[in-house]
């Protein structure tokens, strides 16, 4: 139960009759007793909150940056009409900061024995599951002097999925994929290519690809064409350790890694390859395995929704072992991790040969555009020291990348905006070269 501002206002107005006509205890009583009685009546006549029935329906998942509508149905089984303020509470990151109050509060009137729907519109600002908190209802009496207040818990979860902003690159990458796949065959022969067809020689074709036996059977010169092999395995490994927590721009490194992993998965599943996902720091945080091409993207997005960077050092040995277990056949292992010198030299490099022995390994890392800006800053002593420190950091990164390349690893190091398309291009060129 709670008072309203109207009761306080009436009490304040009551000071006039008390002061002018009846100064004394009698006057105080004469003003406050009717007020108290009216409040008591209001309390009794307000619709009971405890007997309301609440159910939810609506969206269960939403991409980050979009809105989700969750509907709350309030049935009033009592014989008194419900006039109420309702707060549908969700965690603070369910709305952009500043708009929580307006978005979560509703005014509601439900006649006796009827029901009404109200819709809460969420616009989450972070990835992950949002669980509905309490629903608080304040039911006013007919005089609006006194209220009944109660709490209902109506569980509901809205999963906020990664935004997949690099979707915009998908059409152009798919066009490039079609160029090398199926319809347009390539002429180079490589390890990961299979024989596609014979066609007539046109000037400019590599003479080494002329099929002499076929040429002998027909009157024109025939060349063999090859196409990239399908049904290759790709294992995306997300490093969720401490190095993925650092913020580049406004989002953690992990978010940029996820975005590029999603683009790569979308592209690879269209190219007919099988995509698995492993998120690991000191234990498996997420594992998606053996999904069909149509199913892989939703399951990846779902698995990534609740991934958060952990503030612990990644166990590279465990990561390698788990990746080897997860990818029993020859695969392309895309390791989305860092190129910082210490974690790579101490963690990854010693165990890398175990991976490269059987698999093609691609290491992708998110570079910080702020460091690039620092490296070009000039003018005063502070800027030059910044530039020196940034240059030092960049050269260390290059050295680490060089060490990895010496192990036969392909390294992609790009800023968050660039990483997804660059990684997709690298995948396509690996596929073209038949190195998958």
């Amino acid at each position, binding site marked *: 139960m709670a008072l309203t501002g109207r009761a306080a206002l009436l009490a304040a107005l009551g000071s006039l009759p008390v002061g002018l006509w009846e100064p004394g205890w009698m006057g105080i009583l004469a003003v406050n007793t009717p007020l108290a009685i009216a409040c008591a009546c209001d309390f009794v006549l307000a619709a009971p*909150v405890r007997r309301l029935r609440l159910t939810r329906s609506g969206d269960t998942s939403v991409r980050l940056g979009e809105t989700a509508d969750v509907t709350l149905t309030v049935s009033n089984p009592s014989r008194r009409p419900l006039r109420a303020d309702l707060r549908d509470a969700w965690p603070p990151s369910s709305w952009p900061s500043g708009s929580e109050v307006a978005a979560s509060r509703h005014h509601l009137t439900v006649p006796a024995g009827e029901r009404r729907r109200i819709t809460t519109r969420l616009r989450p600002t972070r990835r992950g599951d949002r669980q509905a908190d309490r629903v608080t209802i304040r039911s006013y009496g007919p005089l609006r002097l006194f209220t009944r207040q109660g709490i209902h818990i109506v569980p509901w979860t809205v999963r906020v999925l990664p935004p997949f902003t690099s979707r915009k690159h998908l059409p152009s990458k798919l066009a490039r994929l079609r160029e090398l796949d199926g319809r347009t065959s390539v002429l180079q022969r490589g390890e990961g290519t299979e024989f596609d067809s014979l066609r007539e020689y046109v000037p400019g074709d590599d003479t080494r690809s002329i099929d002499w036996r076929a040429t002998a059977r027909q009157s024109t010169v025939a060349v063999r064409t090859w196409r990239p092999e399908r049904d290759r395995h790709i294992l995306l490994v997300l490093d969720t350790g401490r190095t993925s927590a650092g913020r580049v721009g406004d989002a953690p490194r992990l978010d940029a890694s996820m975005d590029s992993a999603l683009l790569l998965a979308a592209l690879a599943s269209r190219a007919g390859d099988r995509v698995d996902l492993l998120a690991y720091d000191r234990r498996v945080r997420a594992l998606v395995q053996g999904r069909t091409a149509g199913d892989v993207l939703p399951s990846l997005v779902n698995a990534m929704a609740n991934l958060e960077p952990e503030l612990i050092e990644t166990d590279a040995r465990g990561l390698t072992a788990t990746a080897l277990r997860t990818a029993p056949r020859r695969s392309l292992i895309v390791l989305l991790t860092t190129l910082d010198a210490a974690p790579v030299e101490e963690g990854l490099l010693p165990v890398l040969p175990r991976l490269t022995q059987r698999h093609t390994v691609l290491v992708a890392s998110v570079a910080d555009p702020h460091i690039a800006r620092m490296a070009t800053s000039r003018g005063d002593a502070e800027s030059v020291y910044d530039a020196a420190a940034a240059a030092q950091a960049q050269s260390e990164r290059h050295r680490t990348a060089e060490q990895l390349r010496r192990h036969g690893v392909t390294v992609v190091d790009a800023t968050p905006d660039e990483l997804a398309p660059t990684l997709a291009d690298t995948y396509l060129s690996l596929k073209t070269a038949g190195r998958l």
Partner: protein
Amino acid sequence: MTAAEATLPSTSTSPTPRQVWTRTRGVALALVLLLAAAVAIALLRSDTHRGSLDPRSADPQGSRAVAELLAERGVSTRVVTTLDAARAAAAPDATLLVAVPDLLTDRQQTVLRSTIAESGGRTVLVAAGSSSVEQLAPGVTADPATSLESTLVPNCDFPAAQRAGTADTGGLRYTTIHLDADQCYPSERLATLIRVPDASGDGDTVVLGAPDILVNDRLDEQGNASLALQLLGSRPHLVWYLPSLSDASAADQDDDQTLFELLPSGWLWGTLQLFVAAALAALWRARRLGPLVPEKLPVAIRASETVEGRARLYRKANAHDRAAAALRSTTRTRLAPLVGVPVAQAHAPEALLPALSAHLHGDRQSLHTLLFGPPPSDDAALIALADQLDALEREVRRP
């Protein structure tokens, strides 16, 4: 309302009245017990008074012992706390003891003086300060310096003092202009007990320098008990006046009206009602529409933090040499592929410099100083070096 809805499970988590009762009854029971115990203790101990110099108080600083001793000797003790009661009780066959004369206001002292003069009984002033003793016992003045020792010898003709012997009277010291006054228990030649007989009748006024002889704690030491009983027991009745601040006569009604008395009562009661309204408004605002929702926050560490930290360290340590080495090394690494030198040999002057000077047709010595020279000596030189390296790179890149 369908049957299906009626059977929906209740989602309410507000406690029912029965649950509220179940949860709070323990606390309520404890509160009731506490209250009952408090009332019982208050009732049982309501007769004990805990004031110093109070004849009803058994505290170390109380005076119940002397009152009991007097009662055994047939002297009745009556405690009064207001001036009016003290005036009414004053009589020739009564001793009036004023426990803390300094608490009385000027007006009260004037009234009390006239009562003392009229009564014709004995008046005992305990530890009267300089202002009150001059009002209540004219002709007696208090010395600003108090006596150092507490226990003193009588050294006078006052029979009561002679019989009592040494006593703890040391405290305030008095002088008097009355020639017939008894000046007893001197400390450094000033008396701590003075008895001034009234000009007419057999009444007198006794000024006592310290209350020690009356308190329970000290009554059994020296001749304290003897002196107290003789001073207070000379008349069949004892009026023990404990001045209190709640005494209505302490307020001066005539000229000193307070703000509240000047205001019309309507304002006061109206304001009281406004306070009620303010309390209601506070209750209205205090009730939230549900509690705050907690949430785990993600860590916010910038990825570039270590690099920025290193830059600050360079600056703090004035590491011109390291900064210059880093800048030069980066420039060399970038220039080498442009002039056709493998990156692995970028840091060897004999490989890089010929290629570079051939490309630029420039002076090999100045290039050597720029790319491999000694570290700059101060910040200005470092800034200049960075600019020169930039210029060199632009020149090489220019088609």
